[in-house]
């Protein structure tokens, strides 16, 4: 076995003409030339590996950041924001000295390749982001999109993804309290597996990813580093070494939730003893990312001895060690006199911890291997000064035609019998059907603080036992709406998540997002992205809910066919006393049903148009964010003052979908009357935004009506909670038993 000489900094400087495989690593020619210009010489193999992965779309946001800036530029004034965009996750003040951190990320591509591990490690990654802020993770949510429900490959991908999320999250002891499951043929080769997490800490416990204080030690702890998730870097390895080692390495990482659980406990114990100056988790780009970001955010430089990294596979090259995305690893910066105690805590939890370097008073990131310097860079150029692209974008030529194909002109049901038939079809359709078969594979109860979990409008967690302070989270996104109009679609996602939080009685505070789109190199996709970001930024400004962080996932497309533009929006809210939360289920017979908001003939992108006509065209529902805010205020006040016993937001599927869900969950039916000025079809199926239904105890009716009247919110009495049927007077009646069979039978029949 012979080896080519180690590609040290010295060697690189002396051999300027050596050709490096920058193209295979995904760098463009001008990007490579920029690296050479920054360094004043050709990069070493290790440096090239670091630049190539840190300048990738995934890590550098090079196509998206010119648009994402709007989230900062248009950010509303908010007293609640403690840490904004740019850290591992944003942090929000929720009162009583508590801070909450939350974020949504994507793990789309790995989950298509290997559904179980792809989804599992998605949970693992987002949870480490939360720990890295200093918080104890308290809940997870999972917004998911799959191909057609009856496509054979969905039966491969979905059960694996669900089992992976459950297998990892359940083993970490994190209740899964929300999310979505959406089917659409556009996601056939590109399922969207987004994962969100929430963490709670005291204000003084907020930690940041920075390495400060010369002489402080850099400690790598958690799992050993292996050859998983290396991806492109193995090309480098094969350039450097001979073939006498395993060449095919898994590009998808393998998760070990048990190790992650130990990592959580051990990190929180170290935080509690104030042992940590700065911290970063190892996710995408592994050690390359952690060392360059820590050094770049700190005041000095960093020196790392790569030989000290504990390995699972002793044949790994330095480039591979820098690139490895082995899971369940963290990097902490610790003052020298606290290192012993930090290592002791790791030992208590049987977590391997190793000092791999220290903070220096210079401004370089230097990495050594076998005593030789193989990396000598300004860390900012790796972590923050990557390329920025102003990708061309243009409104697609087909957009006008799509919008002109008006869903309001589709044939409508003409009799009570036909309405009834379509209601049954709607509630049994895969997107509208009960997702219990999926959610029952997730633990909702662990930690003993779950107040609400799916299928409630938002998940709610108590964070203080004495005062009852709690937080709520909802995630929403409707790719069909966004396809028709990405600006409005993004605002509708925001409006729905905002409404879902308010419906449960919590006050919306802040936003995180996961922006799932096709290829940025397609001007039509780039236009969708630009429009969605502009819509979301404008919407957040108007609602006063800042974007605290999030994630962009591009290249979700198969050949020329991109997914629907799918901005998924998470809204976090706070509730002073979780005892005042409002559930979806009807509670008591005799309570009065009120419809809040205005109902218009809006069927573009609707569930009805999809289920009955397999149609997508026209314009999505109009957005009125001032109305959303007013509706939210009324729902929160009504919950606080005990004026309503149940509430449900109206969105896809319209009013009838919401009524059926509330009825089935409560085991109590409803008698509905079509209000004056509306026809039964529009009343039942319209998807006008800014609406909710509430159940008002008779004793509260006058007070509730007065409040809505005084605030100018339309409130229409539409019926009463009653019996064991859902009846629309003069049209049809459906028994709860039949509705239940239709609503709950679909998903098990397709997937179990």
């Amino acid at each position, binding site marked *: 076995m012979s080896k080519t000489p180690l590609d040290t900094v010295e060697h690189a400087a002396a051999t300027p003409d050596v050709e490096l495989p920058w193209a295979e690593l995904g760098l463009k020619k001008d990007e490579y030339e920029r690296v050479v210009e920054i360094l004043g010489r050709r990069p070493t193999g290790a440096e090239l590996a670091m630049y190539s992965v840190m300048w990738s779309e995934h890590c550098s946001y090079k196509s998206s950041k010119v648009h994402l800036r709007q989230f900062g530029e248009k950010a509303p004034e908010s007293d609640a924001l403690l840490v904004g965009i740019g850290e591992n996750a944003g942090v929000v003040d929720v009162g009583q000295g508590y801070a909450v951190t939350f974020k949504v990320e994507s793990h789309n591509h790995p989950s298509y390749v290997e559904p179980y591990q792809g989804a599992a490690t998605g949970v693992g990654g987002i949870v480490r982001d939360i720990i890295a802020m200093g918080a104890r993770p308290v809940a997870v949510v999972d917004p998911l999109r799959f191909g057609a429900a009856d496509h054979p490959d969905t039966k491969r991908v979905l059960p694996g993804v669900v089992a992976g999320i459950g297998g990892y999250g359940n083993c970490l002891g994190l209740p899964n309290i929300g999310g979505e499951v959406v089917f659409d043929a556009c996601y056939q080769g590109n399922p969207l597996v987004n994962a969100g997490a929430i963490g709670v800490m005291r204000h003084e416990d907020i930690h940041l990813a920075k390495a400060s204080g010369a002489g402080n030690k850099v400690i790598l702890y958690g799992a050993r580093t292996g050859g998983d998730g290396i991806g492109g870097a193995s090309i480098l390895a094969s350039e450097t070494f001979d073939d006498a080692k395993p060449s095919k390495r898994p590009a998808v990482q393998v998760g070990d939730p048990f190790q992650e659980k130990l990592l959580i406990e051990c990190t929180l114990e170290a935080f509690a003893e104030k042992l940590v100056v700065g911290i970063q988790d190892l996710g995408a780009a592994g050690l390359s990312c952690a060392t360059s970001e820590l050094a770049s955010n700190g005041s000095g430089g960093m020196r790392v001895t790569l030989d000290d990294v504990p390995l699972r596979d002793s044949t790994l090259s330095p480039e591979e060690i820098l690139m490895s995305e082995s899971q369940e690893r963290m990097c902490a910066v610790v003052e020298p006199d606290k290192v012993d105690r930090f290592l002791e805590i790791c030992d208590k939890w049987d977590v391997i911890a190793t000092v791999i370097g220290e903070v220096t008073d210079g401004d370089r990131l230097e990495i050594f291997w076998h005593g030789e310097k193989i990396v000598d860079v300004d860390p900012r150029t790796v972590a923050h000064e990557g390329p920025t692209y102003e990708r061309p974008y243009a409104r697609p030529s087909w957009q006008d035609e799509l919008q002109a194909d008006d869903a309001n002109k589709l044939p409508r049901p003409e009799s009570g019998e036909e309405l009834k038939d379509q209601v049954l079809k709607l509630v049994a359709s895969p997107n509208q059907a009960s997702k219990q078969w999926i959610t029952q594979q997730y633990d909702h109860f662990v*930690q*003993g603080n779950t107040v609400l979990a799916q299928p409630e409008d938002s998940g709610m967690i108590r964070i203080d036992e004495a005062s009852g302070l709690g937080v709520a989270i909802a995630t929403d996104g409707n790719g069909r709406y966004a396809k028709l109009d990405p600006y409005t679609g993004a605002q509708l996602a925001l409006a729905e998540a905002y409404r879902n939080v308010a419906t449960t009685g919590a006050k919306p505070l802040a936003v995180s997002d996961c922006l799932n789109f096709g290829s940025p190199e397609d001007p039509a996709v780039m236009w969708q992205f630009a429009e969605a970001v502009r819509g979301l930024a404008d919407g957040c400004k108007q609602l006063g809910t800042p974007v605290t962080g999030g994630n962009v996932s591009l290249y979700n497309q198969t050949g020329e066919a991109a997914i629907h533009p799918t901005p998924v929006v998470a809204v976090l809210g706070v509730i002073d006393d979780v005892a005042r939360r409002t559930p979806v289920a009807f509670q008591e017979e005799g309570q009065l049903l009120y419809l809040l908001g205005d109902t218009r003939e809006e069927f573009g992108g609707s569930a009805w148009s999809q289920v009955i006509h397999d149609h997508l065209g026209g314009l999505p529902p109009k957005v009125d964010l001032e109305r959303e805010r007013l509706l939210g205020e009324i729902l929160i006040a009504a919950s606080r003052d005990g004026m309503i016993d149940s509430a449900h937001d109206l969105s896809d599927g319209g009013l009838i979908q919401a009524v059926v869900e509330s009825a089935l969950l409560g085991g109590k039916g409803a008698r509905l009357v079509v209000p004056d000025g509306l026809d039964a079809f529009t009343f039942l199926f319209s998807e006008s935004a800014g609406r909710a239904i509430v159940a008002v105890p008779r004793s509260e009716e006058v007070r509730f009506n007065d409040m809505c009247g005084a605030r100018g919110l339309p409130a229409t009495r539409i019926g009463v909670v009653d019996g064991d049927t859902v009846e629309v007077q003069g049209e049809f009646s459906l028994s709860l038993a039949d509705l239940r069979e239709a609503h709950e039978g679909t998903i098990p029949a397709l997937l179990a």
Partner: protein
Amino acid sequence: MTARIGVVTFPGSLDDRDTQRAIRVAGAEPVALWHKDKDLKQVDAVVLCGGFSYGDYLRAGAIARFSPVMDTVIDQAKAGLPVLGICNGFQILTEAHLLPGGMLGNDHLHFICRDQKLRVENADTAWTTDYEAGQEIHIPLKNMDGRYVADRYTLDKLEAEGRVAFRYLDVNPNGSLNDIAGITNEAGNVVGLMPHPEHAVESLIGTGRTDGLPFFTSILKKLVNA
């Protein structure tokens, strides 16, 4: 005076803090016990809580059973110390042979989390005196490996001696033989079950029921009156 009830934390235990809270809600004093420590800190009873000790690698409960703390728990349980095993704790008790039988993967091969209806079959154990025999209760269930199995002789003996403490009603969620959800040892001081009573002690949280609280009030009364 009140009782001191220990809750063991193994690496991978998940419901340790929840169980401590349930003990507190019942009015007793929870005491944290650590798996590497043989010392039980003079507690009056011990709960082995739910979770995935050692990741459930090898077999659920199989590694935790050899933790130092278990040496003491096994000795003292044989001498009469009340011990309750919930979910992973139940699995550990069978691995430690404090309770007969064992748990296999759910027959449907999925993790399942649901509000489970049970019948209390034995209200005379140290942990069940605040129930009535025959009482029907709802307790959250959540597990991957919850299918109780034992040989025919053991099952017959458990049934004949009234040692099936809880039975699943309406739905058998995992394929357990004889619908068994929980059992007790002969002396009635060691009880194990798959459902999670510690998740059903507050009316606002989880399923909103408090059907699990009598586990903790039963043991408290027994210890205080002893």
